[in-house]
Structures are given as structure tokens and as C-alpha cells.
């Protein structure tokens, strides 16, 4: 990627991620997060990761962020509460010093650019995934199944939960309990 395009894209990415953090309204910060993901997928496309760039859009923007939006609409959160006045400059100083420290360690070595590969990115990813990471892939399926089961069990606990029914407890007497003796 040429430097000019990289500077434009990275400044857009930084601006939209700042807008995620600083926005008071959750809807706008989720929309900025979607913008972040879209811009990042452009960066990944430039880095020859086509499959993951598309997966980021399909999975993240299409599924996870829509889920976030659903939850925000469902919960009626409204505006976020303001943090304390002194916290904001302190946090900005802290973050700025971390970034400045990272930038001081900026390496200037020459890195070689990736050569053209024989197979497409998706095919190479599939070969690697099914040949060397097959157990991890199966475990990932188990993890997603466990997440699905746990979410359904958490949300559906009203139907199957064992709760105390006080009137039934009080109205219970000896005659109902011991019927077979």
C-alpha cells in the first residue's frame, strides 16, 4: 500500500475508533465500530488477507454488530453517564504517553515485501487449517456450541428454573405428602 493511501486510511481508522470511545450515545458508538471494521477490512485486503477481510465484514459487521444493535435497542440504555471531570485529561495523558513510548521504539529496518504465492489466500488458509490445525478447528466448533448452549440456557431460565412457590409450600399438609402409607 502506498504511504498516501495508508495515511488516509489509518487516520480514518483512528478517528472512528476515537469516536467509538468518546461518543455518549451507544448507537453512534456501535455505528463507529462498524466503520472501524470496514476500514480495517480495507487494510487487511491490502495485506493480502482477502478471506479474513471478507470474514470480518460478514461475521463481525453482519452478525456480531447487528447483535449489539439489537441489544442496545432492546435494553433502552440511553445516553451514557459522564465520567468524572478529572478522569478525562488523566486518561488522555496516559494513553498519549503509551503511544509516544511506542513511537519512540519505532524501528527503521527494511522489511521485504511478500512475494506472489501460487495459490489464492482462501485456498492456502484452508490447506493450513485442515492440515495442521484440525484439532483446534474441531475444538473451536465445540466452543461455539458451548457458547450457544450457555446463551440459550441463560436467556431461557424463566421457563425451566426451579423457583420457590410460597403459596404451594404453605398450603401443603401431611395428608397430601404421605399417600402411600
Amino acid at each position: 500500500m502506498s504511504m498516501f493511501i495508508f495515511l488516509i486510511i489509518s487516520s480514518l481508522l483512528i478517528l472512528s475508533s476515537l469516536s467509538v470511545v468518546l461518543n455518549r450515545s451507544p448507537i453512534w458508538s456501535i455505528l463507529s465500530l462498524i466503520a472501524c471494521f470496514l476500514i480495517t477490512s480495507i487494510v487487511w485486503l491490502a495485506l493480502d488477507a482477502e478471506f479474513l477481510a471478507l470474514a470480518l465484514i460478514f461475521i463481525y459487521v453482519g452478525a456480531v454488530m447487528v447483535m449489539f444493535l439489537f441489544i442496545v435497542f432492546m435494553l433502552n440504555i440511553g445516553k451514557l453517564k459522564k465520567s468524572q471531570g478529572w478522569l478525562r485529561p488523566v486518561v488522555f495523558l496516559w494513553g498519549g504517553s503509551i503511544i509516544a513510548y511506542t513511537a519512540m521504539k519505532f524501528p527503521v529496518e527494511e522489511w521485504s515485501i511478500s512475494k506472489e504465492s501460487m495459490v489464492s489466500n482462501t485456498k492456502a488458509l484452508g490447506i493450513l487449517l485442515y492440515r495442521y490445525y484440525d484439532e483446534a478447528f474441531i475444538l473451536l466448533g465445540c466452543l461455539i456450541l458451548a457458547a450457544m448452549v450457555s446463551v440459550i440456557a441463560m436467556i431461557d431460565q424463566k421457563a425451566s428454573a426451579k423457583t420457590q412457590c410460597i403459596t404451594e409450600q404453605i398450603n401443603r399438609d401431611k395428608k397430601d405428602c404421605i399417600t402411600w402409607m
Partner: protein
Amino acid sequence: MDVGLEYYLLLSAIICTIGLMGMVLNRHNLMAILMSLELMLLSVNINFIAIDYFIHQMHGQIMVFFVLAVAACEAAIGLAIFVLLYQSYQSIDTEIFDQLRG
């Protein structure tokens, strides 16, 4: 002029720091904390893919694949917990969850 690896690493460091700042700034709101977490995971993924491109490897992209799946699971479970908390407290402010305070 092509962009070197260090620019990508610096970009991902900045995104990660912004996520960390958001986690501290919006610590009253669980939804904002989860969104900052997503930003930090995104910066880690940018790191993996940039380094992969420059050392001619693909193992980092597999790692990004796994990170994406785990982050999706984490978001789903987190949002389910938020729905449950909202049902019992009518808010997801972290300040009211102090029932276990000794």
C-alpha cells in the same frame, strides 16, 4: 514508497491504546466496555496479519480466524449476561452491581 511493517504496528498500538482508554473512561457502562474490548481485539488482529504479510507466513491468519470466532462467542455470552442483568436491575451501570461488597 511502500509502507513498512512498523507503520502497521504503530497503527495497531494506537488502536489498542484507544480501546484501553475507552475501557477506563466508560467504565460505568458495560456495553462500552465490551465495545472497547472489540477494538483491542481488532488491533491484535491487525498486528497478526501485518506481521504475516511481511514474513511470508500464514499461521497468523489462522490465529486471527480463531480470535474472530472466540470474540464472537464472547460477545454473544456478554450480551446475554447484559440482558439478564437488565431484567433484574433495569440498568447496566456497573455501579449498582455491588451486592457482593463486604
